[in-house]
């Protein structure tokens, strides 16, 4: 192996390798789990009334008669080619089905993260700069309350209040054909349901790292040079204080995708979550597999993106002088 020079490229390469490991590990795990499904998958898929010949033929077509390691390799091969086979229920290529719903899940999770940051970060900054004030206390109670509330509970309450009781917002669906405005209004409730817990989380994290940062000697330097307090907080301190929040975000996307599954099901939105959910309830395992794989891929990519953002903010990471998540907390 050639030696990689230290610095940005080495850092980038190491993060890509990590992401690749996550994906490979997850595919293997996924494969193992499908092997654990009780009984012959062909039987399960074809149902109790299938003839023995049909089951054998189906198993052969699915490659179920091959040894385990060959099937694993085959599975990897399929994944790399993006060939997840054809859905036996709709007769459509599974890849198409996944790609069709992926944008909905992406829109939902990204808007939830954006909302959490747009509200959580300023809230945290405010709390940090007014420690033990009324606002800080209210924010503390609220955020702890919000963090500990499961998002599916929030989803149901939001639905009840805003869609059914007040009738301000449409109840269900994504508004696929209703134009961009309709799509956006239908995004409001599920996004809020996902974001609410995260707002509290981001606010708490930002507050604590902001308080820590404001006590750093370099902040005293900024003050000693007469910089405006708002500039000190939102420029000099925030760029340092957002690092732990960013680091946590990377890992948090995993949880977020999980929560998105519930939100999609509750709000009857198309998306990877709904795809997986219907797949499970109809025992359509190839579709479940492909859906879970898509989520794993998104998770790995979100992680990679966070690491890049982290390196973009902190030059010491680019230089390979310190690690990401482990370094600060």
């Amino acid at each position, binding site marked *: 192996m050639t030696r990689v020079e230290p610095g940005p490229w080495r850092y980038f390469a190491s993060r890509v390798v990590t992401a690749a490991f996550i994906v490979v590990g997850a595919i293997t795990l996924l494969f193992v789990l499908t092997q654990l499904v009780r009984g012959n998958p062909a039987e399960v898929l074809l149902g109790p009334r299938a003839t023995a010949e049909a089951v054998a033929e189906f198993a052969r077509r699915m490659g179920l008669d091959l040894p385990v390691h060959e099937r694993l390799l085959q599975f990897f091969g399929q994944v790399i080619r993006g060939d997840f086979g054809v859905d036996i229920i709709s007769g459509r290529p599974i890849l198409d089905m996944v790609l069709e719903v992926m944008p909905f899940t992406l829109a939902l999770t990204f808007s939830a993260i954006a909302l959490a940051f747009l509200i959580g970060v300023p809230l945290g900054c405010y709390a940090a700069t007014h420690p033990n004030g009324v606002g800080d206390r209210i924010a503390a109670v609220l955020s702890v309350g919000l963090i500990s509330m499961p998002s599916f509970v929030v989803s149901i309450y939001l639905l009840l209040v805003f869609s059914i009781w007040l009738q301000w917002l449409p109840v269900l669906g994504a508004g696929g054909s209703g134009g961009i405005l309709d799509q956006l209004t239908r995004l409001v409730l599920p996004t809020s349901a996902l974001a609410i817990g995260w707002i509290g989380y981001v606010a708490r994290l930002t507050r604590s790292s902001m308080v820590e940062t404001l006590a*750093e*000697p*370099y*902040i*005293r*330097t*900024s*003050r*000693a*040079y*007469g*910089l*405006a*307090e708002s*500039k000190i907080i939102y420029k*000099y301190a925030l*760029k*340092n204080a957002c690092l732990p929040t960013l680091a946590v975000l990377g890992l948090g996307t995993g949880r977020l995708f999980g929560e998105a599954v519930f939100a999609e099901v509750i709000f009857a939105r198309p998306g990877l979550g709904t795809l997986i959910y219907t797949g499970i309830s109809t025992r359509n395992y190839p579709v479940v597999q492909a859906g879970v794989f898509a989520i794993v891929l998104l998770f790995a990519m979100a992680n990679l993106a966070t690491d890049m953002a982290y390196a973009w*903010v*902190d*030059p*010491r990471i680019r*230089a390979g*002088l310190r690690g990401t998540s482990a370094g600060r907390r």
Partner: protein
Amino acid sequence: MSEFPLLSIRGLGVDFTTSRGRAHVLRGVDLDIARGRIVGLVGESGSGKSTLALAILGLLPPNAGSVQGSIRFDDVDLLNSSAESLRSLRGHRIAMIFQDPMTALNPVFTVGTHLRDVLNAKGSGEDAMEHNKRALEMLAKVGIPDPEQRLKAYPHELSGGMRQRVMIAMALLTTPDLLIADEPTTALDVTIEAQIVSLIREMRTHVRGSILFISHSLGLVSELCDDVAVMYAGAVVEQAPSVELFANPRHPYTRALIDCEIGLDDDDGQKLRSIPGEVLDPLAVAPGCTFAARCSLAEPRCHDQAPQFRSVAPKHGVACFRA
């Protein structure tokens, strides 16, 4: 040229609230800084030098209790100024160089950002291009090679000596009336220290104002400063022009300090500790002289009556009954 000093501190007292109780860190400091002079402030570690510097800037840490006494800067009463007017003095008429250049610069901003924002805060009305040009010139002036590159560098890419030069550049960009340098070389190794000291000496040609040079080393201060103030356990015990102080030390602590340093090649806190006895605990209440417990000349009144700072010769003040 006006006669009254640029900075005049009287009876400055600062307490900190700590988990062990109230720490009396400054116990009535008297100090004058004349215009255009370099004043050395010497005292062993923990005597309250940095606290004094922060009190002047109005940047005491949050656990500092109410501040006693007065600090007059030119015609401004610093202790009774609004936060806003203090802020406009900082980085404009008063600048500070901190002890540890490794932590005093923000790790996620470039040297250029640090320097340009100092000019920005000063509000000179110039544009960004002009600021950049001034920053470049200043980096060259403080002896940083390849300033174009360094302007884009982050603090971690520079050595300790280079970072301290950046701090000095920040301070000089403000063209202050008062420059406070708090042990600017203590965190650096000896060869770098010599370079920084000669840079500070050179700075005199750029800084028309006064410099308060804080150090724990009498040797360093005697090389560099016009006047010397000696600090012990939160109070200035003696102040005089350098030559006068070394020729004619009056306070027993100053004498002990000079004795400890004489005939020794290098300077550091080690020798100061060879004065018998222990430094006064900041938590202790001391009605008398803070040095009495360690003083060989102490008489009964030294223990229960605080000696006032008084003039014993022109420009030579001392706080001691026996001087």
